[in-house]
């Protein structure tokens, strides 16, 4: 954009712009990262505050060392069930009373039990912040876990697990992580699966809460229209005497990540499917991986952007799919690398083969400068719009807490990405991906798919879609 001189004059003549090529950018206005206030209470609870008074809203997230990897063996799914039960009766109020309390506040509350941590998220208008904090303290610290409520919610959870079998994308995801991780905790959905959820009861849930919900290792992140000092006092009043929970590390045993599986195709039958859901994957990388930034850039080129290789090939050239993408799920341990697409049944075998070919090709030769620039820029220049709202900022701060990132992490992010080279990307991808060892999953109409897949990939392991009536 030019200055306010000429271009600022009213009535710029029609057709005055040069349309022949993309206009050049004006000077970049730097992003000002939010200023953080950090507090720590005597019981170990940390409070991190980013004030932003643009809008009268507050995003609170309580991060607890209560993720799926902290679950005792044989109790997979207890973190999720515990999270769901927090609001089903707490601090002397019944489930119905807790529901009315929240709904009258008008706040939004949710619990997410991931592999690494559990996060209690509360979004509220700032004029009812005190009441919202009362609510948060009650459900985090004093859930009642009434036996009848545990029974009911476990039943709902089991029904949900069964209903998920109707969803081809969920079936495909589950089959893939099982194939990649086997008995490691990452091989089972974070929310658990039927065989263990069905055995969970009040005792396990209460024990998990007692051991894992506590101030030690926990952090409360607050962003938005708050006064940091006042919030500090308000949090201390409600959480200062919080005890319980055990120090990290956990008594959970996520298991060992096994040797890579030789590439093979698993075909899950879903008769009369309108499409084939395709996944390929392998053990990827941890958040702390030395090649983290190279992998981010490499993934953007392969399948992280609209203009990535797999999407341009399968969607924009061939029109076989609504979209194709890849991602590294960075976690405390090495989470999966996943490639995914859904294509019309008749081209499924060819699409899977193209997906593998694109992956292999990126491991052959370092990407060109054009692709490198696109990938790097899309990662660093997008930062401002990732720090726009209170809830975006709070989720960035959660990432910082969970992966123990340095305080200047986001300030240095740009330089870290810009230092990534094409040869560095090649080396990092070669060190983490091997197309010959990728697990491959297709969920669809086996009758229509099996022949094509066998023709291209040899042995295909065909399974009935589980649990379908």
């Amino acid at each position, binding site marked *: *954009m030019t200055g*306010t001189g000429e*271009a*600022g004059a009213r009535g*710029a003549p*029609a057709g005055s*712009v040069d*349309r*022949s*090529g*993309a*206009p050049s950018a*004006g000077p*970049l206005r730097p992003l000002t990262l939010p200023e953080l206030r950090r507090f720590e209470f005597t019981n170990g609870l940390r409070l991190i505050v980013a004030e*932003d008074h643009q*809008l*009268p*809203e507050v995003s609170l997230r309580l991060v607890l060392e209560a993720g799926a990897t902290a679950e005792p063996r044989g109790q997979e799914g207890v973190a999720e069930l515990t999270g769901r039960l927090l609001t089903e009766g707490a601090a002397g109020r019944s489930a*119905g009373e807790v*529901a009315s309390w929240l*709904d*009258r506040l*008008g706040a939004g509350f949710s619990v997410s039990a991931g592999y690494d941590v559990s996060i209690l998220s509360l*979004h*509220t*208008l*700032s*004029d009812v912040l005190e009441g919202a904090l009362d609510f948060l303290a009650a459900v985090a610290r004093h859930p009642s876990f009434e036996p009848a409520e545990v029974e*009911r919610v476990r*039943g709902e959870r089991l*029904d*949900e697990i069964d*209903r998920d079998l*109707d969803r081809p994308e969920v079936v495909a995801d589950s089959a893939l992580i099982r194939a990649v991780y086997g008995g490691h905790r990452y091989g089972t959905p974070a929310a658990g699966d039927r065989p263990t959820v069905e055995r969970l009861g009040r005792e396990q849930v209460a024990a998990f809460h007692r051991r894992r919900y506590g101030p030690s290792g926990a952090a409360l992140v607050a962003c938005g229209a708050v006064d940091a000092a006042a919030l500090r006092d308000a949090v201390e009043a409600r959480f200062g005497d919080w005890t319980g929970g055990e120090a990290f590390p956990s008594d959970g045993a996520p298991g060992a990540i096994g040797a890579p599986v030789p590439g093979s195709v698993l075909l899950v039958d879903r008769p009369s499917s309108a*499409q084939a*859901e395709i996944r390929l994957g392998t053990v990827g990388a941890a958040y702390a991986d030395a090649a983290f930034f190279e992998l981010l850039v490499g993934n953007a080129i392969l399948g992280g*952007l*609209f*203009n990535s290789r797999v999407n341009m090939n399968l*969607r*924009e*050239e061939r*029109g*076989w799919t*609504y979209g194709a993408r890849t991602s590294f799920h960075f976690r405390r341990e090495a989470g999966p690398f996943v490639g995914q697409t*859904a294509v*019309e049944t008749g081209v499924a075998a060819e699409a899977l083969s193209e997906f593998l070919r694109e992956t292999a090709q990126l491991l052959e030769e370092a990407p060109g400068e054009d692709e490198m*620039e*696109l990938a790097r*820029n*899309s990662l660093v*220049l997008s930062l*401002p*719009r990732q*720090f*726009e*709202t*209170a809830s975006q900022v709070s989720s960035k701060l959660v990432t910082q807490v969970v992966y123990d990132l340095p305080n200047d992490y986001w300030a240095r992010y740009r330089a870290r990405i810009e230092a990534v080279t094409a040869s560095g990307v090649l080396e990092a991808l070669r060190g983490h991906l091997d197309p010959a060892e990728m697990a491959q999953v297709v969920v669809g109409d086996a009758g229509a798919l099996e022949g094509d897949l066998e023709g291209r990939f040899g042995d295909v392991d065909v399974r009935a879609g589980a*649990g379908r*009536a």
Partner: protein
Amino acid sequence: MHSDSVRFDFEERVLDNGLRVILHQDRSTPVVAVHLMYHVGSKNERPGRTGFAHLFEHLLFQGSGHVPKGEHFRLIQRAGGTLNGSTWFDRTNYFEVIPSNELDLALWLESDRMGFFDEAITQEKLDNQRGVVKNERRQSYENRPYGLAFETLLEHAYPEGHPYRHPTIGYMDDLDAASLEDVHAFFRSYYAPNNAVLVLAGDIDPDEALDRARAYFEEFPSRSVPAPPVVPRVGDERGERRAVLGDAVQVPRVYALFHAPSFNDADFEASDVLTGVLAEGKSSRLHRKLVYERQVAAEVQCFTWPLESVGMLIVVATARPGVAATDLEAEVLDVLGPVCDAGVSEDELTGARNRARRSLVSRLNSVGDRADAFADAVILRDDPEYVNRAFDRYEAVTADEVARVAANVLRPARRTVLHVVPRGADAEGRAA
């Protein structure tokens, strides 16, 4: 700041060619949202060409006079931006959210496709995106459990020939039938500057941004646009409609669509608040009764769509295993009956209003969301100030209004009921 004082300042300008421009400044983040909304959607489609407005939206990302295929996405992503488009019954939108120093890039791309799209479209691009859209239909509708429920509901709720009778995604045969001729005709008819609004929201200087908008857009002449489709009112005489759909699912779902106030109706906010009382949060009527007490439903939803010319209030209840669709429907109607007859309590209303206020704030907290809201307010209501006025409107909803809307809307003659049942089961959901 107190939540009563939320306000988003803006200026409205109209260019010489009729393009409306909304300028909203917020310099807190160096980001700008460029949002172009055209007043055309699936309700403008002609018979035999359902899905065309949405297919056309895809084509608009395939390059234009000065922009080669693939470049639109590449340039915006390389600038650190995000972009997309969406099509709905009444409107189609295109947006970029980018670092504010790249405002010109987004204006160049949007203006190029408004002015020079049809010289760049080819049969090959059409066929490619037809394939993509057919796979979108397969992925998001046909292969998704209950994915065909909404189109089935529309087919029964509206009479033959009604503009809201078909889904935005369209039917496969019609997607196959779309021709390059259709593409050119649709572009000429609807993609005129005087049929659109451009919203620039975020880190801008409003005067400067307006000048840039004029430089990029004002040269395209205004032209006549087809008259909006006639949308017949669906009255009580249509009576209750019922349908059953078999699907690859394990448990039945009950859908009830009620003809309700449109987005332009003075009762829209009361109708929206009614949905909050019925099914928002675990203390809501439907959730408490069906999920918690009776345990006949796994989940229940109720919502209303902000549509220009018709209104729909929709209830969706998913059965617990072993509960038949007919029984679940009876349970749903048992909850709706007393609301229809006696309205809602002050206490319920207070909660619903508080939730609406919070959700208004959280739906307007990014410049992209605000740009979208301004565009909707201009295109659907001809009133950009509605973005701010909505706060007062929701605050002012009374229990009497909700009771009146409930009594008008939640009646048998205004509803279409659909049971989605496991394939091979009978209408009660019992396995054959």
